[in-house]
């Protein structure tokens, strides 16, 4: 009885220690992140963007879709902070509301793509053999598909739209994460703690997802963050060509599409400079933030 008590207190003590040490490590990491000026700048810009976009109705009184034929193509002024487009729609409002769609597409696609990639990568890396070979081939086939063609096929099946774009990005975007997680799993499953779990008769699923996965998760989160800028650019690219979201939905890409009219390209540069700069600034900020995050959470991957 007495012995039991002693061991109990010992375990609680070590758990307490682990907690204390954990918080210390956490604090150290946070401090390291805030010492990286570029990363802090990135975080700040991303937060400002998010606040502006989520609180769009507070920051602008204009409706992003309401045309105003009395104020077509005016430059930036006090009334219209960033000017208006060829239909007289306020560009600042369109940047904020359009940003919601652009960023939503990027974040959701990145999240779904990483989830698919992680699950398939875990299965492939842990079991190897035939399943793994099939998955690797599947990944090769997917990365050979020209994206434009896929867009055409999906659009023809279910019509153009925000969610269809997300579907395409998620279906094509899991390959990077798959390769990463797969190679991590192949390396880790030889480690002693995995062998111990196997010896205790733990189920494969449990070993994969509750033992190995947590140690790979930081890498995945960093990868997920670093993928977001790519999706913002891809959405903009497809919408710029006219194959992305429908033209009447404001996104940064559909706004850039205005520059395809040569009169706007020549005479009204603010129409395409504004969305272009918004994309560049957002992408830049997420890149800086992601770099900082990686330095702190996953220093091996530099």
């Amino acid at each position, binding site marked *: 009885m007495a012995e039991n008590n002693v061991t109990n207190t010992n375990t609680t003590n070590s758990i307490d220690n682990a907690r204390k040490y954990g918080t210390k490590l956490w604090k150290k990491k946070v401090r390291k992140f805030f010492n990286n000026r570029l990363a802090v700048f990135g975080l700040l810009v991303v937060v400002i963007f998010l606040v502006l976009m989520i609180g769009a109705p507070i920051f602008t009184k204009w409706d992003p879709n309401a045309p105003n034929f009395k104020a077509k193509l005016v430059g930036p002024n006090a009334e219209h902070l960033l000017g208006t487009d060829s239909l007289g729609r306020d560009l600042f409002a369109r940047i904020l509301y359009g940003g919601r769609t652009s960023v939503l597409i990027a974040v959701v696609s990145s999240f779904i793509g990483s989830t698919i990639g992680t699950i398939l990568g875990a299965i492939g890396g842990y079991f190897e053999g035939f399943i793994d070979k099939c998955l690797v081939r599947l990944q090769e*086939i997917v990365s*050979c*598909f020209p994206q434009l*063609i896929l867009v055409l*096929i999906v659009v023809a*099946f279910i019509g153009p739209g925000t969610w269809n774009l997300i579907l395409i990005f998620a279906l094509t975007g899991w390959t990077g994460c798959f390769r990463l997680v797969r190679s991590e799993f192949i390396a880790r499953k030889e480690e002693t703690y995995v062998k111990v779990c196997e010896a205790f008769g733990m189920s494969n699923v449990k070993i994969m997802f509750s033992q190995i996965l947590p140690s790979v998760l930081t890498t995945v989160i960093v990868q997920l963050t670093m993928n977001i800028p790519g999706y913002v650019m891809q959405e903009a690219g497809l919408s710029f060509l006219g194959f992305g979201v429908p033209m009447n939905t404001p996104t940064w890409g559909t706004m850039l599409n205005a520059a395809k009219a040569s009169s706007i390209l020549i005479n009204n540069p603010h129409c395409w400079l504004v969305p*272009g700069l918004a994309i560049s600034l957002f*992408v830049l900020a997420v890149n800086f933030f992601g770099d900082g995050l990686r330095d702190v959470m996953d220093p091996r991957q530099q």
Partner: protein
Amino acid sequence: MAKYIVRRLITMVIMVFVISLVIFIALQSTGVDPVGQMLGVDNYTKEAAEEMREKLGLNDPIIVQFFRWWGNIFKGEYGKSIALGYTVKDGLIAKWPATLEITLYALLISTVIGLLIGMLSAFWQNSIIDYLGRGIAVLGNSMPEYFFALILIQIFSIKLGLLPSAGRIPAGGGSRLPNLILPVCALAIPLCGNLMRYTRNTMLDVANQEYVKLARSKGIPEWKVYIKHIFRNSMRPVITILLFRLTILIGGSVAVETVFAWPGVGQVLTKAITASDYWVVMFYTLFMAIMMLSISFLIDLIGALLDPRVRLGK
């Protein structure tokens, strides 16, 4: 080694086949009717459409059409645009030189500048060149290349009036250089940023290896250490990146071609996609898939050739 190459080649053939089959079935089942596009609204009657479909062989089972298409490819008949009537040979293949012209120039220029500045900034760490290189890399990473193209047009064509903003001079039509400068810059500059950063980091990695220290302690002149020991050993990852660039370039050139009204494959493709032109889209997909697969094959091969451990291993 020979066994490995043969095995890779066989897998490649199978994969090209699978990819084309998937695209073929998917395109057929989209339900978009190319015949409707072809006849136009005025001439469209059920009977005419049916007759047209029969004539084009669109009523046969998918699998029959698929193998007929492959048969034709081997015979050198690449098909015809259903909606616009041009043959793939004239309408698509003939446009490749224009696309290759800007992409290869862009690849060449970005490689030279990227490698040079990357090496210099590894040599003189934290110098002005290093910061400049990093700045360009950051900008190139965060700007879509067609947006960069728009800015170039705004500055050099509209404000300064120095360079033409659109079009391509056909062979023999005078100096082609002015029309080339802006599109090539728009593709090359964002690319070389990445390459710079990559070259710099790989070289710094290699520079910290033991054998470099050994070379230095043997008294080999510093420039020789850099060229013979560091540069040569950092080339393998850099070559990998370079080959990948080629596919990115051709994919990314679609938007840039649109901006500069460059008569390349990109324009044909965007039109074919909107008109759901089976054979044009199929041929493009086939071509891109073969290219992507060959490039990843090449990367592995070069990797094996450059790395004696892999070469001697199996």
